[in-house]
């Protein structure tokens, strides 16, 4: 067990808590950078997809995991990002200019949507975002001038730094760099006063308000920041898919994002990556399950939603902190061996907060 001797208050908000952290995360980045040397194109594509999912997951994690606001329509932001990016590229805007515009546009969309609906709390918010997701999907279908409607919209793959996006090694590096940048941005947002205000709102709105947090402002800000991250992921997703159709950005994608953060672990940035790896490999996992099940069940199309639901229910009931929570427990078990106590992580029973006056 490691005890950190703190001599300055600022140590509390250091990005890396100790040298071990620095060493392991640097090693991780180096390994990720060296991966194209050993893996072939297929796996690089999969890992690029996981990077994109992680960026989207960071967006939703800031909103749901850190600010405590549920969003059941986050695919809409992916759609906004993807379509804006494709539209700009089609009209000759270069890649390096398009990405910042996408981020700003999704930020603004998040703010504009956020301001009216964030007066709602709890489940009203969940329902409202669900409805917004449907409306957004519909807008993508009907606004043909901008999105190409049901015909779809091909995404141009421009040259960037003299390389083409068709090159999977180059695309992998682009995704990796954006993931690392997004991770740093998220860490820095979360250790700033803004991020502290988010966490305060999640834990107790009344306490946050008493400490001078402007609830409406910070909730809208959280929505906007979340939208910006997810929009960026959408822009990269557009390159990954190559051809945008409105039915990609449906409610199932929104729920997949929620599955990602729940399985990964609510309220932890590690969780977004764990969750993205899980969701990214879920189709393969299901394919493996199909092989082992009798063919009468294995060949059914309903297996996918069923497993999806089972995993969700299982995690909510038995491991609310997700894969990251499980990791923490295993780590602590070995650090404290043989004195680990199960009760350390016992779920605390609380009275349900009532919305009634």
């Amino acid at each position, binding site marked *: 067990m490691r005890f950190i001797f703190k001599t300055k208050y600022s140590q509390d908000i250091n990005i890396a808590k100790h040298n071990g952290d620095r060493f392991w995360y640097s090693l991780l980045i180096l390994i990720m950078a060296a991966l194209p040397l050993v893996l072939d194109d297929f796996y690089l594509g999969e890992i690029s997809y996981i990077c994109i999912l992680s960026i989207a997951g960071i967006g939703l994690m800031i909103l749901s995991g850190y600010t*405590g606001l549920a969003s059941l329509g986050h695919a809409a932001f992916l759609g906004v990002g993807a379509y804006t990016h494709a539209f700009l590229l089609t009209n000759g805007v270069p890649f390096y200019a398009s990405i910042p515009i996408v981020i700003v546009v999704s930020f603004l969309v998040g703010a504009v949507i956020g301001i009216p609906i964030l007066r709602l709390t709890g489940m009203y918010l969940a329902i409202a975002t669900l409805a917004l997701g449907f409306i957004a999907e519909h807008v993508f279908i009907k606004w043909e001038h901008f999105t190409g409607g049901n015909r779809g919209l091909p995404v141009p793959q421009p040259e960037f730094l003299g390389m083409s996006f068709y090159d999977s090694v180059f695309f992998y590096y682009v995704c990796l760099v954006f993931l690392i940048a997004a991770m740093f941005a998220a860490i820095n947002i979360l250790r700033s006063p803004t991020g502290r205000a988010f966490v305060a709102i999640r834990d107790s709105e009344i306490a946050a308000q008493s400490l001078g947090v402007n609830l409406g402002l910070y909730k809208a800000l959280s929505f906007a920041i979340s939208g910006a991250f997810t929009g960026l992921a959408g822009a990269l997703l557009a390159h990954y898919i190559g051809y945008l159709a409105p039915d990609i950005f449906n409610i199932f994608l929104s729920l997949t994002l929620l599955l990602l953060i729940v399985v990964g672990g609510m309220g932890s940035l590690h969780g977004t990556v764990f969750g993205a790896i899980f969701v990214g490999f879920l189709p393969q996992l299901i394919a493996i399950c199909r092989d082992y099940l009798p063919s009468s069940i294995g060949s059914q199309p309903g297996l996918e939603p069923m497993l999806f639901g089972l995993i969700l229910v299982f995690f909510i009931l038995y491991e609310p902190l997700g894969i990251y929570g499980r990791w923490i427990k295993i780590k602590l078990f070995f650090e404290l061996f043989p004195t680990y106590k199960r009760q350390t992580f016992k779920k605390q029973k609380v009275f349900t907060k009532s919305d009634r006056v």
Partner: protein
Amino acid sequence: MQLIQLIIDGVASGCIYGLVALGFVLIYKATETINFAQGDILMLGAFVAYSLIGLMGMDYLTGFALTVLIIAVFGFFLDAVVVRQIIGQPAFATVMLTIGLGFIFRGFASIYWGTDIFSFSTPFSGKITEFNGLIISYVNLSIIAGTAILMSALYFFFTFSKIGVAMRASSENQLAAYYMGIPVKFIFSLIWSISAGVAAVAGVLLAPITLVDTSISLIGLKAFAAAVLGGFGSIPGAIVGGIIIGIVEQLCGTYENYLFEGVREISAYLVLILTLIIYPRGLFSDKAEVKKV
């Protein structure tokens, strides 16, 4: 005349929304959780009815009653075994849990019954009556009549029966009800079973119109609009909200040219968002005010 025709059609589909919304409201009033799987329970109801009436050749009314009974028992155990464990967790957990349950039901239905579109014969299929130039189908009449009968039955149940009063008491104040000797947990499971039963009624009534397949669970999402419009927590509000949504949808569909293309499919969601922004407490709310920031 066309307008009246539209309104009649709207009322019929609105009754279905209202019944599903009623399920939300019952559960919300009692436990302050929302069952996002309500539409999927409706779908299960329709499928069970298809099995009993369409495949096993049962009489329509017997099959109807048996379906409602099966789904009600299912709803009881759904609460007693699964959902109860989540009490005390943040609202987010319940939302995710019921969404997950909905996925399981849909996956189960498409594995067990398959992804085809099914139908079964009802005494109302294909019959119409004419009244002053209005064309009313028996199916729509059956929906409206079924809703009216169910509503009055529920009204009498909640007003005069001992269990009904116990349910209202538990919704009002769990602790006080518990001190009065009401088995609150059991009552909550019973409320879940009523709510599932109501969804099953809606599913069976709806089956002749939309036919039976897994996509009908999406009605549950439109029913949110009805519940919110009626003021979450009010039983008559749910039905009135549902009827308003149904009529609005019919009108938007017919006068699409004057509005914008495709307004019909999203009209329910637009009403939902507008209600939440402008008048979030809803039309019939018994609460003083929805908590605002």
